[in-house]
């Protein structure tokens, strides 16, 4: 299934940057960055539990916000892309570099 993860991290404190990096790192391990703080993660339910758990550990409830959008299994029909920064479909795209 595809889960869209987007986040806002509060920058006021000096440790904001660190949280930002940590959250980005976690997301990168599970999906691809489609915009600055938006990640598309194609995950199995078990992987999603892991990803969610790690994110919730890393963020700060007071200052940050995390949003998860569940686009399900047939997500290909539900996503439209315009402009630059085309993403790849990890399930069906042919990955030849």
């Amino acid at each position, binding site marked *: 299934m595809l889960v869209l993860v987007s986040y806002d991290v509060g920058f006021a404190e000096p440790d904001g940057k660190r949280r930002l990096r940590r959250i980005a790192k976690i997301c*990168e*391990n599970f999906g*691809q960055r489609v915009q600055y703080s938006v990640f598309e993660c194609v995950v199995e339910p078990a992987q999603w539990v892991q990803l969610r758990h790690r994110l919730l550990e890393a963020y700060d409830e007071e200052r940050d916000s995390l949003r998860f959008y569940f686009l399900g299994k047939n997500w290909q029909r539900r996503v439209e892309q315009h402009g630059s920064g085309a993403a790849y479909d990890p*399930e069906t795209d*042919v990955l*030849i570099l």
Partner: protein
Amino acid sequence: MKKLLNTLYITSQGSYLSKDGECVVVRTEDGAKRRFPVHVLDGIVCFGNVLCSPFLLGHCGDKGLAVSFLTERGRYLAGVRGPQSGNVLLRRAQYRLADDEDGSSRLARSIIIGKAANSRAVLRRCLRDHGERVDRLAMDRALAVLDDCAGRLRRPVPLDEARGMEGQAANAYFSVFGNMILAEDQSFCFAGRNRRPPLDAVNCLLSFVYTLLAHDVRSALEAVGLDPQVGFLHRDRPGRPGLALDVMEEFRPFLADRLVLSLINRGEVRARGFVRKESGAVFMDDDTRKTVLTAWQKRKQDEALHPFLKERLPLGLAFHVQARLMARAVRGDLDGYPPFFWK
């Protein structure tokens, strides 16, 4: 059930692959950088001059990704696999069965029946679709040989006889294979199978697609814990993945051969995409190779009904299903090995 995962093919010369967190990072020589999480992949295939960092190789082994190294032209060189999976008892059973003449013959027979039936299906499909453009007489003769072969193998026969029949069936099939090439282009004529090196464009395509098939089948076998080197039909020879070649047999006609045919017949590969060397060997250029890889990846996503499980699944998963059925047959949980019949 396992999910069909993607395979990453690296064809850009001078690329560097490294690990970052859970991701494979690919840096190509032109400075482009792409990253892919490891969990969306089930294998990496590197062509020619591609470097992999040791940490990436270790990580891939750990996560069960098969990394294969091929020459730029697609000949298999080496592979990196993680710790042997599955259990010893299965592998012991496999070795015992391979040493046992009758047992080997039983499995080899199923494999050959599967291959003959699928070869037959490919020929019949061609007769049905392009009956007026092919040499009907020759096709019918080849079909008769294939039928006869499948029929005779239903009864127990010694292993050598079974292998003889396999040879006959393959000869009959390849003798009419050229008939199925309908492209006007004269450079795609097929006079018989040759390899190492392939001497014409069709053989070049066939060899390349067989290598891709071998990579996938081999990783599927390793994933269920079978030893890909010890075959039943293909006997032991150093460096040869006997069992992988065995399980490949049934897939060759409808996956590999038909893919090659449709690439040629639809004009997706052109004669100018092939280079002839002084030695007479024929190789394809980078664009053609990419076309073939793309077609191969797409083909694996096509769904088919599995004749034994009665379930629809992508063809790329069929390797894993067949590997599992093979493991059960080796263990004795199944009476025999049910090959994949393509309709």
